[in-house]
């Protein structure tokens, strides 16, 4: 793993009007059409999630025994209805709330905890580093999906447990990246200078290390959101996450599985949403990586 810390000075020239590092990154990101489109789609989905109660045409919990499994385009059900006669469009819009939450939260949690672990390990170095990283290594003995399912399965089904298990899944990879980035920064001259001038470790970390390592760790963390979305909805799909009748894309996909023989194209819609969000996060993360000129 190599890393450039030159703040992207080698990348495309930055318009004079844009000031500062983040301004420059944002400027470059805006001129990357793929990242821009992905960002806009994600923004629209987030807005739909926030304004779900006003946007959704119907109550997502309202069942109707006579209107079960309506096809796409039936009157009153623009995207059809599910196995209990609930409006699929409304459930997809409301589902964005929970699906985004359980997909993004684990990465945010793991970003905070994993960075802290990795930065401390990398900065302190020596024996402490070895001990921390060997413990982290143990988690690498489990493929991510297996670890998530094992933890969620052992802790018991439920939203909190699924959040918790995914957070545990993502801490080790983030900690590893944070450790490797921090180890590289640690031996740089200005850190030595700060130490020589008598600055305390915490001050050095806060003022000199964080600014240099958080960027690359952040970019790496964003690349995990896509996997996290798939896994979080996957746990719900298995029945380990969200519980009925909550609208959540993975759970909707599960409850409509039997409908594929009656109404296949309605049944696949929730998966379409997971796919869209997941691919947009991947594209945006790729764009962010080149805009920040981070090589991991």
């Amino acid at each position: 793993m190599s890393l450039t810390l030159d703040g992207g000075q080698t990348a495309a020239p930055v318009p004079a009007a844009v000031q500062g590092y983040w301004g420059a990154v944002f400027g470059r990101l805006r001129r990357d059409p793929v990242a821009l489109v992905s960002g806009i789609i994600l923004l629209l989905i987030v807005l739909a999630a926030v304004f779900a109660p006003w946007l959704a045409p119907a109550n997502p919990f309202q069942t109707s025994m006579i209107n079960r499994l309506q096809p796409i385009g039936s009157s009153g059900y623009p995207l059809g209805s599910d196995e209990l006669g609930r409006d699929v469009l409304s459930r997809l819009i409301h589902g964005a709330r929970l699906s985004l939450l359980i997909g993004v939260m684990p990465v945010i949690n793991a970003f905070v905890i994993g960075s802290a672990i990795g930065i401390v390990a990398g900065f302190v170095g020596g024996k402490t580093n070895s001990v921390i990283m060997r413990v982290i290594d143990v988690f690498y003995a489990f493929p991510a999906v297996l670890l998530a399912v094992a933890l969620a399965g052992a802790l018991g089904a439920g939203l909190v447990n699924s959040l918790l298990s995914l957070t545990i899944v993502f801490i080790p990879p983030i900690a590893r990246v944070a450790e490797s980035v921090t180890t590289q920064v640690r031996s740089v001259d200005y850190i030595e200078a700060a130490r020589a001038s008598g600055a305390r470790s915490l001050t050095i970390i806060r003022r000199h290390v964080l600014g240099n390592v958080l960027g690359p760790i952040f970019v790496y963390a964003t690349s995990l959101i896509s996997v996290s979305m798939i896994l979080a909805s996957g746990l719900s799909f298995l029945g380990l996450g969200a519980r009925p009748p909550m609208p959540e894309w993975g759970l909707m996909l599960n409850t409509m599985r039997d409908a594929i023989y009656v109404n296949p194209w309605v049944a696949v819609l929730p998966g379409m949403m997971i796919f869209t969000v997941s691919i947009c996060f991947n594209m945006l993360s790729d764009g962010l990586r080149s805009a920040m000129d981070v090589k991991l």
Partner: protein
Amino acid sequence: MPIYFLKRVLYVIPITLAVSFFCFSLVHLSPGDPMDAVVSPDAPSEVVAMVQRAYGFDRPLPEQYGRWVVRAVQGDLGLSAANGRAVTAEVFSALKNTLLLAFAASLIGFTLGCVFGTLAGYFQGSLLDRLVTGIAVGGVSVPHYWLGMLLVIIFSVELNWLPSSGAGPGSSSDWNFEWAYLRHLILPAVTLSVIPMGVVTRTIRAMVADILAHEFVEALRAKGMAERQVFRHVVKNVAPTALAVMGLQLGYLLGGSILVETVFSWPGTGLLLNNAIFQRDLPILQGTILVLALFFVMLNLIVDLAQARLDPRIQRG
């Protein structure tokens, strides 16, 4: 040179112990009494005590762990809480099916990944490159359980070409190399192959592009070497990392097949695990995860050793 290999092999011991400790702890992490699946909580206390003794749950935890490890080494992972059958036999008969699925998926995914990645790396920036990169991003972004449903709808429901579930005709779990069985393998294997396809394509594309930008490639071409020979040098440089990535991907497939196995009712470890979770069959849960994790640890070891053999620089690092 052998020091690296020796160190790497010895490193497996602490990892294995830690993994076994983790699997053992899983049972005690879970809320409720592990006994609940075996005997009703309302049963007379003498019966509960008897079953507790039979399963060894009345012993102190460190002793339980010790006994469990000693038995596990001898190949005895206890009895299923749900049906009383031997865990080891259940896990290994399921593992056979999962391995079959994982190998089939890797075969498809690695072949496509190598071809796509090399083409995209060689023709960087071309339309082909963009197309392949798009496919690869799709492969790593798609919720594969959903892709499985999609394939079932197209090839089973609409076209009626391929079966949508099971590992063979009837309910038999003995696999044979016949078309009647192979057709059951196609959809789950294709579904599972998109992830390694995407990852391998992305890795190889990046590596080929990186190698081609090196000066030595320019030098080889300048001295008049045929493009086919230059390609051989590129392959030699890409191979160690590419193999390592593929080895790890195979491991991820073993653990990651749980969702696909659930979609296709494929009788592998994923389905076994899924059923164990919902029946609160903790010995099966524990045993399956232990076996899969140890398999993964061994695979990691083989990958590291193979990579070090192919690329001597690693041993010195």
